């Protein structure tokens, strides 16, 4: 029974939430102050930033910081690259990880524990130790290019996504599969049509995380994106930071950071709709 939250304000009910509101608002007040500072810094000069006068805007709003950051650093190319890498990675990773997570959570077979442990170990060795030997190998064999970088992004997110989805699949009731089997649906199809949509909130959340991970990633890109044409946002931002430090243009640095942050913000807003849609409990009752 859905009630529009706006038709009648039940004050007694709202009062129950008061402590919650207080905690949230206190936290968010600080978060807002911090984010506003960064925004204000992007419209300031270095001098103002380092003398603590970011909010005073004594010399006005410096929108040219944004223009400069965009033009000077070829930001559109960074975006194009990062978007390509992130989208492809997010999509392909689901196709590799979700089935694996499902199988690992559902079936007991002898290598189940071993595979799970391997995934954990894969995630816990510091990335440097994984990447350097790979770099050495690919250099010796002459493998290069965008395909390599994208493949590596995909591979490097598989363990994380698999472990993440594993726990969500584990809590799904087996009655769904039993019902589907009774209806004559083969187990593979059951997975794609029934089970996978049931963990939609988890899928969306992990996709957001993966997207951000690839979008902001810089170490692998630094090593494997060896021409400026392939450079994604993470490395680009690092270049901007270094350039700004030499020229002392911290206002421009923050402008670049905001520019880089905006697409992810938009994506988050867009996808966060999905997180709310939980399992409505339909399908099987009683």
């Amino acid at each position, binding site marked *: 029974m859905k009630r529009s939250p706006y038709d009648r304000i039940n004050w007694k009910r709202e009062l129950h939430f008061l402590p919650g509101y207080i905690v949230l608002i206190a936290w968010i007040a600080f978060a807002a102050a911090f984010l506003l500072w960064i925004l204000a810094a992007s419209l300031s000069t270095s001098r103002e930033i380092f003398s603590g006068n970011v909010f005073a805007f004594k010399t006005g709003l410096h929108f040219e910081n944004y223009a400069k950051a965009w033009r000077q650093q070829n930001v559109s190319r960074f975006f194009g690259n990062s*978007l390509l890498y992130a989208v492809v990675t997010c999509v392909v990773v689901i196709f590799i990880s979700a089935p694996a997570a499902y199988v690992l959570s559902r079936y007991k077979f002898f290598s189940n524990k071993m595979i799970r442990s391997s995934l954990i170990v894969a995630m816990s060795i510091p990335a440097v130790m994984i990447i350097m030997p790979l770099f050495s190998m690919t250099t010796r064999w002459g493998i290069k290019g965008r395909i390599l970088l994208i493949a590596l992004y995909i591979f490097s997110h598989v363990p994380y996504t698999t472990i993440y989805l594993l726990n969500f699949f584990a809590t799904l009731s087996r009655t769904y599969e039993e019902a589907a089997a009774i209806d004559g649906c083969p187990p593979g199809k059951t997975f794609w049509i029934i089970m996978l949509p049931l963990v939609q909130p988890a899928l969306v959340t992990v996709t957001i995380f993966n997207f951000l991970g690839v979008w902001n990633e810089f170490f692998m890109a*630094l090593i494997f994106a060896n021409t*400026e044409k392939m450079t994604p946002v993470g490395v680009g931002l690092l270049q901007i930071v270094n350039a700004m430090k030499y020229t002392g*243009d911290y206002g421009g640095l923050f402008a670049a950071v905001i520019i880089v942050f905006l697409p992810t913000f938009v994506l988050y807003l867009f996808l966060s709709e999905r997180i709310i849609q939980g399992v409505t409990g339909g399908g099987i009752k009683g």
Partner: protein
Amino acid sequence: MNRKRLVVTVVLLMAAACFAFAAGSSETTTKKAEGVYSGVTLNFWSMWNSNEPQGQVVAAAAKAFEEKTGAKINIEWKGRDINKIIATALEAGENIDVFEEDYRRIGNVYKNYVYDLTDMAKAANYDAQSYACFNEEITKWAGFLAAITEQPQVGGIFYNKEIFKNAGITIPTTWDEFLAVNQKLVDKGYEPMALDSAYADFFFGYHLDRRIGQAVTTELVKNGGWSKNAGAVAAAQDIIDYRKAGYLAAGAPDEFPSSQNKIGLTGKVAMIVCANYVCSEVNNTTGANIDWGMFNYPTIAAPAGSGSTNAYAGANSLAITKYSKNPQAAFDFLMLLTSGEYDQKMANAASQIPADPRNVAPAIMNGTIETLQATSSPLSWSMGLNANPDIKANVKTNIIALFEGKFATGADFAKAMDALYK
């Protein structure tokens, strides 16, 4: 599900469009000039980024070289993190002809992968257009001339000329003279010395060098024995007294770059112990127009001190790979980049010291060329305090604590240092 598919398709189309856009930007082909090196391709791994002033000068020099000699230079802009990947690339035999790196690493870490430049340098009379100290140091490490200096750095005490003039200060050469200068500045209402915690070990290392010499510092750092070394204890005591006398700027040691920025923001702070890039860094970041000067860190004569007058000097340099197919072409390009016109352009664009002493240092780097030419045994960064990787981070924290006034006497500091060797 349908909406999701639509979204995914749209996003993929956008991505494809961006991809096409990114891939489609082709380079304008320049007319190939007939020249000495036509047909030669050089692969250059740069430690700069294409949008930095240094990077832009390198690109311009490359273009000039291409037009003059018909060679083709491919530049890959790796940024500062080239130091993480160049070793692996060299070991794997990656197709590189020239790369840029810290000259200390070229001479120590990559020496088996770089070309011996001694003969080519002699033929080009390189000695006349470079600083002897760098050439000698790198020859000492690698056994041969392994790199061409591109971006020299020098350290010392950098000061605000106007404050010194107003206070009637003459440049000190000994530690006692220096203390007197600090006192005079305080009396006239200035704050003598800025200090950020990031450079605390640089400052203390200099002072240790003046008391006991860099070699002894390195020994102490590696093996301990601080309490037994009177000079080290005295050095720590000097710092404690310096702080007690009120010669550090308000709030020092502060978090980088707050203290050094005070030089530009308040106009009341007079000096800083750092390397030459601090001048343009402060001017650019604070928007101030400080008239900078520099003098060598004051000495302490024997027997109380080591009598050392060495200055910190470092360089980012260019090296040619051992397996390069066109070493001479590469070398000629390096000569073009690091001398004469393009070197002057580099120095002016980035406000740094020219690699060619015959050029003119930009005003903000006044006095640096002379200091470098007078340097015979350059000091390393932090003068040996970084020599022991096992305790490095703790050493630095102890030194910052020393400047914070956490130790009552020099002996306490030495005891804290010795505790690291149990």
